[in-house]
């Protein structure tokens, strides 16, 4: 046995709970075989999950670091690894390594500020970690606004948690929207970028964006129109990754490696990178 540490060698993890969120998103609860958390992380960081023989992929950790019992991953079915995971049952082991990447600056930059979280579809997954972190340390942050949109009511991730917990918190405003009208939905209908403009937020806050590239593009334009500076807006990127530690070269954009220097970027930082993400 070798005494050197090696980040590429993962730990074994066990799925202890599988929650069906939407038709194509499930949330997996993962602990080590002895029931502990695999490692500590900060909001916005990622972990590499793998199924031997199927492949390894990077996922953002959905649960808040304040959860000391387990980690959660909300995963959309879209490739080899995710399809396999969606068939997995409770008790299935997988491998896990991490945490990777830089977290959101929750304790310095965000502290004391009003927060605006804007998410589309499965883009809520990385933000849920920050939102719950902010809710846990509620007194450190000002007003919290959450704008979340999806294709339909059935595609809203964590819907129950949003309605039962987030929406009932003091000082937390939740604004939900879906793309097209639907029976049983009396909330807002329309795309996220337009909804953001309609809601017309004050610029006395920090915005965190995550969702499909097209939504990010137009929402950023919307925020700019409302008077937000790029330095006030954060997002988290996703590219193909293999090593997770800035060596395999896959997620290299400009002089940055998304796995190591990201995935969290401020929009003015992105301006200095080539448009290849």
């Amino acid at each position, binding site marked *: 046995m*070798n005494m050197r540490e*090696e980040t590429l060698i993962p730990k074994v993890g066990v799925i202890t709970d599988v929650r069906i969120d939407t038709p194509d998103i499930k949330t997996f609860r993962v602990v080590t075989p002895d029931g502990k958390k695999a490692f500590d992380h900060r909001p916005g960081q990622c972990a590499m999950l793998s199924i031997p*023989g199927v492949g390894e992929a990077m996922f953002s950790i959905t649960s808040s670091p304040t959860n000391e019992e387990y980690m959660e991953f909300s995963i959309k079915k879209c490739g080899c690894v995710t399809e396999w995971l969606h068939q997995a049952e409770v008790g299935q082991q*997988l491998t896990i390594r991490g945490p990777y990447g830089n977290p959101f600056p929750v304790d310095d930059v965000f502290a004391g500020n009003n927060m605006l979280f804007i998410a589309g579809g499965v883009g809520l997954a990385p933000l849920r970690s920050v939102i719950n972190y902010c809710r846990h340390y509620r007194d450190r942050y000002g007003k919290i606004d959450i704008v979340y949109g999806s294709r339909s009511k059935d595609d809203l991730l964590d819907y129950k948690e949003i309605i039962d917990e987030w929406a009932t918190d003091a000082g937390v405003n939740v604004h939900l929207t879906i793309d097209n009208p639907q029976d049983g939905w009396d909330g807002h209908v329309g795309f996220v970028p337009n909804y953001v403009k309609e809601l017309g937020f004050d610029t006395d806050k920090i915005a965190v964006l995550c969702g499909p590239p097209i939504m990010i593009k137009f929402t950023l334009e919307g925020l700019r129109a409302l008077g937000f500076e790029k330095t006030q807006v954060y997002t988290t990127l996703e590219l193909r990754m*293999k090593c997770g*530690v800035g060596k395999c070269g896959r997620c*290299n954009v400009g002089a940055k490696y998304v796995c190591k220097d990201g995935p969290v970027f401020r929009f003015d930082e992105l301006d200095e990178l080539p448009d290849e993400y």
Partner: protein
Amino acid sequence: MRKCSLEKINLVFAEIAKAYTLYLPTDQNDSSAKFTKWEEGSVWSNALNTVRSPKDFFFPQAEDLMEFKVEGKNIDITDIRQESEDFVIFGVRACDVKSFEILDRVFLVDPVDSFYASRREHGIIVSLACTKPSETCFCTTFGIDCTEPAGDVSIWKTETELYWQANTEKGEKLLSYVDSLTEDANTKAVDEQKEKTSVVMKKLPLANLTTDGFGAGKTMELFNNEAWDELSQTCLGCGTCTFVCPTCQCYDIKDFDTGNGVIRYRCWDSCMYSEFTKMAHGNNRLTQKERFRQRFMHKLVYYPENNDGLYSCVGCGRCLAKCPISMNIAKVMKKIGGEK
């Protein structure tokens, strides 16, 4: 400085091979050279350099990382790493020696790649000064002096003699094994040789190639250069340049199901390949232009930006010799860097 007669070279190799596994360039049947393990009867090649770079010794094309046993829902991970044994790479050129420093800055920074680190610690590099550079050489562009190669031991080969100089502790130790076969020497012959080689170096066709216009902070300016279209238009998208390159270090991690377990291994990958950045939801580099640009931007701008201005090219000229369509970093630098 020590010296020995070239006639005694096979005795020297035999002595080194007693203590270490020894690799040196030997001629292949197609008139190219390749690093092979020394055994009785091996003949040291006179070729300027090997087709495959010596990065293989530290970062092999494919290596197993770990093994898994999967039973039902359970997974068992086996750490199969083994500490490398001491080995000597003999006759590494100055450019290739420099390439190890470039790889070090990727693999040895935190978190250290233990596979690479183990080999690096146990590898002893005996470098060889150049006397007859080729027209494809441009190491001087990157500040490398081919007459003064780094490494644990540097050697200079004249018509009749081999001159040795240990640069590190590992090198001293290696030299001590061949102490009885070598004798003290002055630097006169070596100095003369350096002088002569330097004259040739100045006359090389690429002697004026400069890195002006590249380096840290040039990302946006160079990324948006119009010439990328033209330079990349006939690129076939093969991986020849990346695989013969001593500094290319991108890799892929893959699983192989053997039927009685899963081996996770890593292998070289190339940013020139269309699926390099392909994800389930799309690809952020859709055309060959973007992939081509990435390779050169990484070597000439991104890497220096992260590594104190050190370029990720050593001017060994392998890609110049091997590209199927003869498109290469020298042409890119001339076109993009603005020098005509």
